[in-house]
């Protein structure tokens, strides 16, 4: 067991790769394509169970990094394979491993073309995603960040819809442009560290230590440039308004499994990166640019909601709702209060579960009717009652109904923004309040577009004869949805286990941003702390 717990993260990264190789070998020797999905499912379930071991460590709670592995990789440029997790990454890793089996089950019958390559790419994607969340060396992080592009590129390009080539190329180029500038910033950090201390390093912990102790200091303008280079990569990935245009295309064209993973995990890489790297490394710049990010986030929330409202295609609607939801996450992060940042992290998980579930549900109906046009449907609740129930619950979670997970996240974010002191407070107006209220309208819009869509799709009379013969969800589909629905309720009723574990890591980041700017850390008595 020692070996497993010492190398747990490495195992989590490598197992999917071995799995992919195993699939290739299986296909070479047995040539039985119908086995592939079972093998893949088994691999991902094993990985999920293994990842649960991460919860067992006390180190995660105490702050700092747990399950650390640090071995030299390229000595010539002093880069190390350094991985570890803390409260920030813990839940994202588990979200990744949790969503994979679901994604695979979701396309159980839908992948007829090239199943081997499909499952191999999914596994490679999983490996890269886990790598992103656990790497503590900037170069290694960059490596996984880029590596996650390729499998997704193929997933969209080969198994996507009619316009898949455009969507795949757009997805790749948008993300690559941002991340390449981040690479320059990473190398620049290396040299600044070299000039300051004599030893260049890509190691996040070392860099952070040098910045905290003041050994590595850079001018305000340099800090801003570096912050922007990092933030651009992450903002494109989130995506923050105005960089969001790749998202609806990619989501609409991707196969269901791809959309689920894209929404649930890939977008989180952006918000995770901002919190993990941008805030602690460049706290002054983070504070200085916070108003811009808050404004963009609010524009994203409202714009995403308004555009979602008029979409004729259900999947595109959900895609635009992603833009709005991720706007909330950004807003919470940049409030720099414990409430807001914890809420942002919580909302990342919520969005992964709720939006992932919505994409699954859209996928189910698409498999039956091969269309996603809202106008094609109507009165589905009469024909598919279970499906309708699930859809409504999921939509409610996405809207943020109390006792469902979305509420907790959005509530925390709004409280955090309200209590924040990041925006100007003038005699006539406290802009933090105004920002909160503006974001609050987004919740109302969310209710409007989702409920309106539900009304058109599920209620009323069955208008289209083709819909009469639709079958309700199969046991497999119900089985996929049950864990997601359970989590929606559980996380909505009892968020403490989640928030407790992430608290120390999040507060550490918050304190850094606030302290560095000469501010004082206000001690917030949150309800999860008692």
């Amino acid at each position, binding site marked *: 067991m020692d070996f497993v717990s010492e190398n747990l993260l490495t195992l989590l990264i490598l197992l999917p790769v071995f799995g992919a190789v195993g699939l290739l070998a299986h296909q070479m020797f047995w040539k039985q394509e119908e086995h592939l999905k079972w093998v893949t499912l088994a691999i991902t379930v094993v990985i999920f169970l293994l990842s649960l071991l991460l919860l067992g460590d006390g180190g995660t709670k105490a702050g700092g990094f747990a399950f650390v592995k640090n071995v030299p*990789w*390229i*000595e*010539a*440029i002093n880069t190390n394979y350094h991985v570890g997790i803390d409260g920030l990454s813990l839940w994202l890793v588990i979200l990744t491993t949790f969503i994979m089996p679901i994604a695979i089950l979701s396309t159980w019958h839908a992948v007829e073309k*090239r199943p081997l*390559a499909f499952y191999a790419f999914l596994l490679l994607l999983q490996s890269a995603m886990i790598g992103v969340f656990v790497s503590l060396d900037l*170069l290694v992080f*960059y*490596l*996984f960040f*880029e*590596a996650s*592009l*390729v499998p997704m*590129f*193929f997933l969209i*390009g*080969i198994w996507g819809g009619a316009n*898949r*080539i455009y969507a*795949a*190329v757009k997805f*790749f*180029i948008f993300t*690559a*442009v941002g991340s*390449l*500038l981040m*690479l*320059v910033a990473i*190398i*620049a950090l*290396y*040299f600044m560290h*070299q*000039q300051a201390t004599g030893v260049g390093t890509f190691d996040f912990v070392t860099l952070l230590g040098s910045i905290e102790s003041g050994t590595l200091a850079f001018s305000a303008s340099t800090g801003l440039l570096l912050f922007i280079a990092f933030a651009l990569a992450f903002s494109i990935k989130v995506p923050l308004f105005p960089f969001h245009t790749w998202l609806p295309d990619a989501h609409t064209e991707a196969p269901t499994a791809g959309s689920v993973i894209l929404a649930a995990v890939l977008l989180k890489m952006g918000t995770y990166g901002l919190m993990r790297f941008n805030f602690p490394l460049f706290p002054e710049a983070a504070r200085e640019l916070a108003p811009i990010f808050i404004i963009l986030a609010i524009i994203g929330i409202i714009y995403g909601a308004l555009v979602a409202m008029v979409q004729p295609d259900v999947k595109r609607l959900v895609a635009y709702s992603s833009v709005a939801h991720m706007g909330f996450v950004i807003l919470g992060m940049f409030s720099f209060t414990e409430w807001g940042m914890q809420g942002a992290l919580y909302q990342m998980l919520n969005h992964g579960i709720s939006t992932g579930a919505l994409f699954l549900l859209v996928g189910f109906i698409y498999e039956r009717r091969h269309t996603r046009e809202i106008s094609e449907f109507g009165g589905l609740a009469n024909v598919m009652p279970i499906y309708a129930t699930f859809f409504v619950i999921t939509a409610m979670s996405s809207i943020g109904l109390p006792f469902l997970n979305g509420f907790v996240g959005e509530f925390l974010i709004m409280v955090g923004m309200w209590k924040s002191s990041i925006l100007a407070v003038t005699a006539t107006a406290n802009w933090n309040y105004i920002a909160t209220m503006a974001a609050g309208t987004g919740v109302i819009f969310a209710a409007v577009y989702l409920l309106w869509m539900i009304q058109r799709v599920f209620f009323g009379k069955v208008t289209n004869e083709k819909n009469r013969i639709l079958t309700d969800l199969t046991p497999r589909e119900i089985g996929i949805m049950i864990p997601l629905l359970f989590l929606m309720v559980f996380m909505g009723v009892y968020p403490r286990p989640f928030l407790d574990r992430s608290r120390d890591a999040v507060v550490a980041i918050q304190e850094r941003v606030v302290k560095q700017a000469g501010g004082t850390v206000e001690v917030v008595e949150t309800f999860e702390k008692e």
Partner: protein
Amino acid sequence: MQLSDPNVNLLIIMPEIIIALTGVIVMLYDCFFPKNRGITGTMSLIGIAAAAISIALIWPGGSVPASAWGGMIVHDSLRLSFSVVFLLVAALTILVSSVWIEREDVPGGEYHALLLFATFGMLLMSSGNDLVIIFLGLETLSIATYVMAGLRKSDLKSNESAMKYFILGSLASAFLLYGMALIYGATGTMNITEIAAKVADPNFPALLLVGAAMLIVGFGFKVAAAPFHVWAPDVYEGAPSPVTGFMAAGPKAAAFASFLRIFVIGFPVVGGLEAAGYLNYSWTTALAVMAIATMTVGNVAAIMQNNVKRMLAYSSISHAGYALVGFVGAGVALTQSNRDAAIAAVAFYMLSYAVANIGSFAIITLLGQKNDRRTEFEDFNGIGFKSPVLAFTLSLFMLSLLGLPLTAGFIGKVLVFRPALEANNPLLTIMVVAAVINTAISAYYYLRMIVVMFFKERATDWVEPRIPSALAAAILVTVIGTFYFGIFGNRVIERFSTQPIAEAVSQR
């Protein structure tokens, strides 16, 4: 005139001797037993392997002096690391061309002999520490390559390619020679070590600057850097695919080796001396601008190509630009170890480029069929799952050329960007940012290859080609190389950047 001891040392030029002898033997064998392609190819490979072993033996140093033959041949990390690139390129090219020689009934013995002579020229270009030796190496290389480009005698495009290459190559050689003459006029010596010492004199004549400018033009042609790149696409498209792969990887790397030797070592940064500082400043600035232009021109033009070979030709131009980034970084490096690291970075870059490039051309040669008929992008439509091994391998090479992590191209890019950023100079930082933006642009056309292979449907029939064993070996080596240099590149870089230990100078 005083005669000095020429310091004859055969060991130091053992790789060159072995390659040249093998070339002669192959040529003679072909005279008496013509049309034995397999045998001449095997002989050449054995010769290359022997040369590689001799390099490995003399590499650690200790057994050979730092320079011999009156200072005309040097034994340093630049020479050694580039020699590795040349030998690898030559060996891979022989493996790749086997399928083409068979298909088009090319005189195999001649071809192999020419390739070996070209390799000899390349080796000499990296080990020569004297302008004359460098020029000799260059001409040996060039003349052999002119012939190779035109080997497909019945094909008009191939003829055009050889003709263009010959005329423009000669022009470039003329520029080089004139530049060398001017430098000799200014410094009174052909030896690069002595030139470096003379340059340190604050009162060097302005003639040196003119000479250096001429050399930049000449080498600019040879490495196909903008604005001296226009010949490259036509020549690369017309030449037979294996030869194109060779030209883009080998002679380009060789030109970089001498280019580095003359400029970085011959015109170094000299602290406190204004005149020499001016020389160094001038050429680094000029090359930085050229690097930006080269990358941009190459990438933007590559986007618009519909022919895969032409696309790769433009991509090769842009890669010369990336290598120039590291080159300029080497030029401004202030310490010996930084300089060595930067030179090693350029060598590593050429190595990673060579592997991915020759790998791509191997597959294009195989799929191109007779006379390279099928080299348009449409010809690759939808072959992804019909020939998965070839298609995935080609995709891997494209991603390596793009510089995606875990491939050799990524480590290469990081390494060449590093010295340029280290200088902390605004122009060089702009250059690196330009390089990064260019990398993003290049994503479009490299991905296009993947898009046509995997995402498009094939309209016409596809007969999966049989992969001959020699080509399979070449593909295997390049695939392993791409991953090995990308994941365990550490060992190679370390080797490349460590100077061999010089033998205690023994004057006889």
